[in-house]
């Protein structure tokens, strides 16, 4: 991405993270630096407060994405990830918050970034995490009335049968030994092409 003109008040992700830690000590559980990408784990109760501080005081004016992750077997099972960017400072920040299996509800940030509307609907559609305060919490990709959340880890790759008269239906697909995956290697094309895990070299 094209870098923006340096300003006197330019800040980078690390400084933004430090600022957040100083301000919200109790709301932040950990900070991870992976190849200069900063991820901050925040507590669910304070997530809206912290995100609105990021937007209003730290200049993170652009919400790149909201997505959710299913860490099945861990507690909390779900994680909602906010990827934010500042056009003013030209830096990214990633904030994550854990959502427990029993609650499965995050706090909507549509009031901060209107673009969150569709991102949150997608997270709801695929993983069944709802967002408190969302103005229109409906599915966005699958049809209204589809009974499953297909990106959960316990949802089979082949899908499940469902039926809604006059709207849609779905059937499990024949996988025939699939999924077909490639293995990274320098072998010739016939060895490299996608194949069932069963037959991987």
């Amino acid at each position, binding site marked *: 991405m094209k870098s923006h003109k340096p300003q006197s008040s330019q800040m980078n992700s690390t400084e933004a993270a430090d600022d957040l830690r100083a301000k919200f000590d109790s709301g932040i559980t950990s900070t991870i630096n992976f190849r200069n990408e900063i991820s901050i784990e925040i507590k669910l109760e304070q997530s809206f407060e912290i995100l609105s501080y990021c937007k209003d005081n730290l200049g993170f004016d652009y919400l790149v994405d909201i997505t959710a992750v299913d860490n099945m077997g861990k507690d909390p099972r779900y994680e909602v990830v906010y990827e934010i960017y500042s056009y003013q400072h030209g830096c990214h920040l990633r904030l994550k918050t854990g959502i427990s299996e029993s609650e499965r509800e995050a706090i909507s940030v549509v009031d901060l970034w209107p673009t969150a509307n569709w991102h949150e609907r997608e997270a709801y559609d695929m993983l069944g995490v709802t967002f408190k305060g969302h103005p229109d919490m409906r599915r966005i990709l699958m049809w209204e009335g589809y009974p499953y959340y297909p990106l959960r880890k316990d*949802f089979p*790759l082949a899908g499940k049968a469902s039926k809604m008269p006059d709207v*849609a*239906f*779905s059937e499990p*697909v024949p*996988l025939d030994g699939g999924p077909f995956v490639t293995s990274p290697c320098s072998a010739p094309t016939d060895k490299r092409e996608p194949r069932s895990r069963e037959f991987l070299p």
Partner: protein
Amino acid sequence: MYFININILCEKFHKVLAGKVLVFTLKSQIYPMPKNTAPVAYDSKIEGNVTFTKLDAAINWMRSNSLWPMPMGLACCGIELMATGASRFDISRFGMEVMRFSPRQSDVMIVAGTVTYKMALAVKRIYDQMAEPKWVIAMGACASSGGMYRSYAVLQGIDQLLPVDVYISGCPPRPEALLEGLMKLQKKIETEQSFVEQKKALLSEIS
């Protein structure tokens, strides 16, 4: 022998056949001349304008050379469908250039692309709205079998919902392949018993 007003038979071919008399027989049965049709006296001037043929052959010839496609472009294959309609490949060389976005005016639905379950019943509904006679082409791997999408969201072949006449392989098929498929469909139409199959009521009325 039976005479029929060519305008009723097929309006699309009105211009081509205007002024010509079409004479045909049905199952080699001889039908009486309708009362209101004047007998045609021998006239050497019109001799070249009279064509003897079978009704099925005439109808099939008209139908197969004026296939109006209903473009059901659902994914990447739709782009190849557009290319087929554009100048380089020029679908109109075969009489199929009149793409109609209204199902009521089209003859052949070209299902070009990935049919998701969310779209599947909409495709079926559009097919149901098409007037007989109608045909379906499944263009590309996705429309034929679900393609690479062995997934919870994708219908594994449009033939689960519609009667497909021609399948075209490829991901995506090249425009030449689509043209080949359309020509295969023309060949198929030429072998149909169109009159007997689709005008049962009319047949019992006039026999």
